[in-house]
């Protein structure tokens, strides 16, 4: 047996000083040599634990092996067998808590960099096609004669649509916005997930025969019953968690206070960073405060920095340990100069006579006993209020599902959090003929978990349509 190689190949990144001023991708990807070197570190262990760590069960050892042998067309085939969106997953999946966490080499502290390899393979396919792009492994199934409506074109919808189309069903995907991709387009910034990659993978899903209808708000244009009565045999709901949460503290409607959804939509979807070449504006603050410490908060902070803010602070009520963002994103943010105001929680927003925000009044917090989430509960330090000047605030405290469809549809059960009740495995809702998956069921989570839900629902819809 060859000696274990525990030297994970690092991926080149743009220098922090430089990248903080542009919207180009931070991580630049492996060179072919780096990819091969990293792929060769995989010991092809018989248990294949990495696959069980992946919500869509990608045949990881197979694509890594093909890559290590320099057979890129084969690597693409193996990767796309389970995952229609590898260029996206290779960039935004939290591999460190999934496939890489259970890699046999993780015990030695150096798991195979599966995410970086996935990204390399997907990028190779995108940039080298059409000449060398491999034909799909399995030809599509013969038409089943069944029609399925997929509502929402984010990660869950795209995955369900791709799988259902491959199985021979006629799929129509409805998207409310003017571009497909959902959170991949409006939420995740260009420097973390270039929109060209998303467009490319959406094109792949369309190439499978999926009919994508933009500008189509289901719930307004048609209710679920109308879809089911209009020739669709099944409906999959993947409309995500699009409703922003606010803090409900005084001053929250001052000018200059954004939800992260609004800020990111303006910047990413509407390209406000190219204003006035593009018509949609966004306020470029001098001193920006981002409330919250998840991935969306990091994305918002780093966008604000790139727009030209002089100072960007993450304001978080717990300590560094409890920050929910990926470690990699925290480090990226910190390297770029984002500052963390920890154990700090806003009490109110202060504005001027023109209704513009000028400051936050904050409490200092300390950590008490663990709460229901297992994290130590932050409690206010009495008399600790202090003033933090700011001219733009971005509230990134999470999102809940948009109630638009549930409100207009009878028989769809929802929880008091607004999420749709669906079977954890199959995605079946309480309404016959309707499935749901992704953030609409779980509340805000990850791209890959939504994809996993889309995949499982597609399999169950197929079973239902054939029974």
């Amino acid at each position: 047996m060859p000696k274990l190689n525990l030297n994970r190949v690092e991926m080149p990144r743009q220098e922090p000083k430089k990248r903080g001023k542009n919207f180009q991708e931070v991580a630049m990807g492996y060179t072919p040599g780096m990819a091969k070197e990293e792929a060769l570190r995989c010991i092809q262990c018989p248990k294949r634990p990495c696959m069980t760590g992946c919500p869509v069960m990608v045949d990881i050892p197979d694509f890594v092996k093909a890559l290590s042998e320099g057979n890129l067309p084969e690597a693409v085939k193996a990767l796309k067998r389970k995952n229609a969106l590898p260029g996206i997953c290779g960039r935004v999946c939290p591999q460190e808590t999934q496939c890489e966490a259970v890699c046999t080499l993780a015990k030695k502290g150096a798991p195979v960099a599966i995410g970086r390899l996935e990204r390399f393979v997907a990028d190779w396919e995108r940039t080298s096609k059409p000449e060398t792009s491999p034909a799909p492994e399995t030809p599509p199934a013969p038409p089943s004669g069944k029609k399925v409506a997929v509502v929402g074109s984010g990660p869950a919808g795209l995955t369900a649509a791709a799988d259902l189309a491959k199985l021979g069903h006629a799929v129509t995907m409805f998207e409310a916005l003017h571009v497909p991709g959902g959170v991949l387009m409006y939420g995740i910034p260009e420097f973390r997930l270039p929109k060209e990659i998303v467009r490319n993978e959406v094109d792949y899903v369309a190439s499978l025969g999926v009919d994508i209808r933009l500008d189509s708000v289901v719930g307004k244009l048609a209710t679920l019953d109308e879809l089911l009565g209009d020739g669709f045999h099944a409906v999959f709901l993947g409309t995500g968690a699009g409703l922003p949460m606010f803090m409900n503290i005084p001053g929250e409607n001052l000018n200059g206070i954004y939800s992260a959804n609004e800020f990111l939509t303006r910047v990413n979807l509407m390209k406000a960073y190219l204003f006035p070449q593009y018509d949609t504006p966004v306020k470029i603050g001098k001193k920006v405060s981002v409330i919250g410490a998840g991935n969306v908060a990091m994305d918002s902070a780093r966008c604000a920095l790139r727009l030209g803010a002089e100072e960007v602070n993450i304001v978080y009520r717990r300590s560094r340990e409890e920050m929910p963002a990926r470690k990699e994103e925290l480090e990226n943010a910190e390297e770029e100069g984002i500052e963390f105001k920890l154990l700090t929680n806003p009490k109110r927003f202060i504005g001027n006579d023109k209704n513009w925000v000028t400051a936050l009044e904050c409490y200092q917090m300390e950590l008490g006993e663990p709460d229901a989430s297992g994290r130590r509960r932050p409690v206010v330090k009495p008399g600790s209020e202090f003033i933090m000047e700011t001219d733009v605030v971005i509230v990134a405290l999470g999102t809940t599902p948009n109630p638009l469809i549930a409100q207009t549809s009878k028989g769809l059960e929802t929880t008091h959090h607004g999420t749709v009740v669906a079977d954890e495995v199959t995605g079946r809702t309480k309404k016959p003929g309707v499935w749901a998956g992704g953030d609409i069921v779980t509340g805000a989570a990850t791209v890959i978990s939504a994809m996993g839900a889309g995949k499982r629902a597609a399999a169950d819809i197929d079973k239902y349509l054939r029974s």
Partner: protein
Amino acid sequence: MYKILEREDLTSNVHAYRIEAPAVARKARPGQFVVIRVDENGERIPLTIADWDEQEGSVTVAVQEVGTTTHRLAELKTGDAIANFVGPLGLPTEIEHYGTVVCVAGGFAVAVVYPIARALRQAGNKVISILGARNKSLLFWEDELRSVSDELIVTTDDGSYGRKGLVTEPLKELISVDKKVDRVIAIGPSIMMKFCALTSKPFGVKTVVSLNPIMVDGTGMCGCCRVSVGGVTRFACVDGPDFDGHQVDWDLLLARQRTYIDEEKLSFEQWLQKHAAAVK
């Protein structure tokens, strides 16, 4: 792309566009709105639906030239197309049999009030409409509004047509003298709606207004359009656009509408330069 079946110039700077959108036409109700985008570089703006024709599959919107987007739209003619047209969004105006309803239309909002007045009349209400504009040249659809009203009062600020003065004057007379008004619907510039609401408030006559804050997606996703009504934050795009005018925090709405005043100016100046170059 969504084809402009017909463009009609209602005044020198207000245009009606009948746009091909069969799916929207099937579902449109009075008081709802659409979000449009003129082209790939364009922003998303909300426009209240003025009329629709299910048979033809068309929806009509009226647009006043104000900033970059509306001027860009004004460059388009019959047969051209716009990039995006999404709707019908928001909740429809509540239409019931109330008794006597006064419909106040300020400026180009007559286009929006027209289908509401029509629906109210069909529901058995006595409809008294007040149509106001700064001067005669800004008036349009007077006959249309008259055709769906039991009575129509026209006002102009300068007295160039109809009664001289603001819409709030006849409104106050109708409410205070007749005392038979059961509901007021006031739609127009925010400042007009504010003063209509202030006029009716002492008399306790329910006054419905249609708010027009800045929006992005129009489906409840961004929270840009948040307004304060009765001390509670609401999203105009999904909770409205109609609200109880007596409960609205008007100063907040007016301030938030000015959020991008500098950027709007910059964008428009750039458009003017480009436009001048193109005309040459």
